[in-house]
C-alpha cells in the first residue's frame, strides 16, 4: 500500500475505534451494538487492507458465538437468577443488585453488556464476511 494510505490509516484508526467503542454502548446515547460493531469491523478491515494482515478464523468464530451467547445467555440468566420471578430479557431483575441497587440503572448497565455482546458478534461477522469474500479467492466461500 502507498504511503498515503498507511499514514492516513495510522492516523484515522484510533479515532475510528474510539468512536466505535463509544457508539457500541448505546443504551443511553446514540448508537448501539450493531452500529458499533460495524464501525469497529470497518476499522479492522481498513487495517487489514492497509497492512495486509490476516486474522485467525477461530478467533472470529469464538467472538461471534460468544457475543451471541452474552445476548441470549443474560436473557436466560435473568429468568433463572430471579428464580423464575422475572421475565426473559428483564434486565432490571438481574444480579448485581448489591453493586447497583437501583433497578433502572441496573437495567441500563446490563443492556450495555448486551450491546457489547451484539457488537462482538457483528464485528466478527463482518470481518469474517470480508475475509470470505475478498481474501480467499479460490475456496468455496
Amino acid at each position, binding site marked *: 500500500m502507498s504511503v498515503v494510505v498507511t499514514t492516513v490509516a495510522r492516523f484515522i484508526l484510533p479515532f475510528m475505534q474510539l468512536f466505535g467503542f463509544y457508539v457500541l454502548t448505546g443504551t443511553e446515547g446514540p448508537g448501539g451494538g450493531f452500529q458499533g460493531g460495524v464501525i469497529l469491523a470497518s476499522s479492522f478491515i481498513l487495517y487489514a487492507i492497509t497492512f495486509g494482515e490476516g486474522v485467525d478464523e477461530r478467533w472470529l468464530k469464538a467472538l461471534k458465538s460468544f457475543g451471541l451467547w452474552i445476548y*441470549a445467555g443474560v436473557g436466560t440468566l435473568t429468568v433463572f437468577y430471579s428464580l423464575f420471578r422475572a421475565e426473559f430479557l428483564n434486565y*432490571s431483575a438481574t444480579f448485581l443488585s448489591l453493586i447497583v441497587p437501583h433497578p433502572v440503572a441496573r437495567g441500563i448497565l446490563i443492556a450495555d453488556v448486551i450491546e457489547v455482546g451484539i457488537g462482538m458478534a457483528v464485528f466478527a461477522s463482518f470481518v469474517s464476511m470480508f475475509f470470505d469474500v475478498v481474501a480467499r479467492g479460490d475456496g468455496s466461500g
Partner: protein
Amino acid sequence: MGALIEHLPVLAVAVSLLGSFTVVLTSLYTRKAGYPLSLSVTFIQLVMAVAILMNINSGGAISYWLGGWRPPWGIEYRVDILGAYVLVIVTLFSFLATVYARKTVEKEIDPEKQPYFYTLWLLLVSGMAGVAVTGDLFNLFVFLEIASLATYALIAMAGKRALIASFNYLVLGAVGISFYLLGTAFLYAATGTLNMLDARALLTLIYDSRIVQLSFVFYFIGLAMKMALFPFHVWQPNAYEHSPSAVTVIISTALAKVNAYALFRLIFSVYTVKFFQNYGTIFELTAIVASAGIIAGSVLAIMERSLKKMLAYSSVANVGYIVLSFTLGKWGVYAAAAHLLNHSLMKAALFMVAGGFIYRLGIRRIDELEGLGRAMPLSSAAFAMAAVSMIGIPPSAGFVTKLFILLASLDTGRFVFIAVMIASSLLSLVYFWRVIEILYMKGHRERMDELPASMLYPALIMGVLSILAGILWFFSIDILDEIVIALGVV
C-alpha cells in the same frame, strides 16, 4: 410469574438459540459436538413443548411479557392451546429430523461444514418454535425470517444445483416475507398495534375498512408464497429435491406447518371469522385458490418422475387442503388442525425413506425403485404405510383429514369441495400407488441391508403412526375441541 412453566415458552426458543451458538463455540475444538448437542437441545424442547401442552389443557393460555414490558407496547409471547399444539408438532418433528440427520449429514455435508450445519439447524428450530409461541405480529415476522434464512443456507449446503434451488427459494421467500411485512404495515396503519390480541379487539370496529381488507390480502399472498400454495409453489419442488435429505425432512414437516400456522393464527385469532363473514369474497377466493392448488398439485405430482419432487408436489396439494379447511367453518378448523399433524407424520415418513434410498443407493427416480419392497422391507413398509395414508384409505391419518373436510363441506353446504376432495384423493391414488406398485410388484433385487437404525426407526415410527393416528385422533379429539373453543369458531 413464579413458576418454571410460565417461562417455558421463551425458554423453548432460547434453548436452541443458545445451543446453536454453543455449536459454533465447540467447533473450535471438535467437529463431533454438533449432533449430540442438537439432539439434546431438540429433545429438551420437545419435553418443554409437551409440558406446555399438558399445562394448557387444564387452564387457558400462557401470556408472557418479554422483558417485563406490558403488552400491547412490549412483545407478548402468548401460547394458547393451538400454539402449544403447533409447538409440539414443531419440536417433535425437529427432534425426529435431528435423529435422522446424523448419517445423512455425515455423508452429504463436507466435514468442515458440519458444525455450521447444526448451527443453522438449531437456528431454524428456534425460529420455528418462536413462530409458534409469539403473540406479536412483527415478532412473528422476525422469527419467520430467522427460520427462512437458516433454511436458505441449509439447502445451499448440498452444493451444486441446491445453490440455484436455494436462490430461487430465497427470492420468492423474501418477496413473500416482504408482503407479510406490507400486510403488517397496513394493519398497523389501521389499528396502531402489533399485538395480536389487541389487534383482534381493535379490528372489530373497522372490519369494513379497505385498509384492513387489503392488509389481509397482503398477509395471504405473503404466507402463500412461504408455504408454497399453488400459484406460488414454483420454488418448492426444486428446493425439496436438491436440499440435503435431513433438511427436506424438517422443512417439509415442521417449517411448512409453521407457515401454515401463521396464516391459521391470522385468520382465526386476528381477523376472526366475523371479518370474513363481512367480507366473504376473500374467503371464496381463498377456497378457489386452494382447490385449484389441490388439483394442480396432484396433477403435477402424477407427471413427475423424481420421487422427492413428486412428494413435493403432493405437499403443494396438501397445503391446499389446509388452506381450504380454513374457509370451511367449524369442521374445517378440525380438519386444518388435524392435518397440521397428520401431514407432517406422513411426509416425515415419506421423505425419510426417500432420503434413505438416496443415501443407500443414490436412487432419485421412481422407476429405479424396482424390487426394493423385498430388498429393504422395513423402509419400504414405512413408505407404503405413509403413502396409503396420503391416499386417505381409512383408518389412516389422511382419512381423518378427508373425513373432516368432507363433513365441513357438507356442513357449510358447499358440495363442490366434496368433488374436489374425492378427485384429489383419487389422483393421489394414481401417483402414490405407482410408487407402491414399483416397490413391491415389479422387478427383483437381492435382500440388502436396511437403512441405519437412526434413519430407519424414525421413518418406521412415523409410518406406523400415520396409520394409527387415524384411530388415535378419535381418542384425543379433546385437543381439537379445545382448539375450536379457544379460537371461538362455533
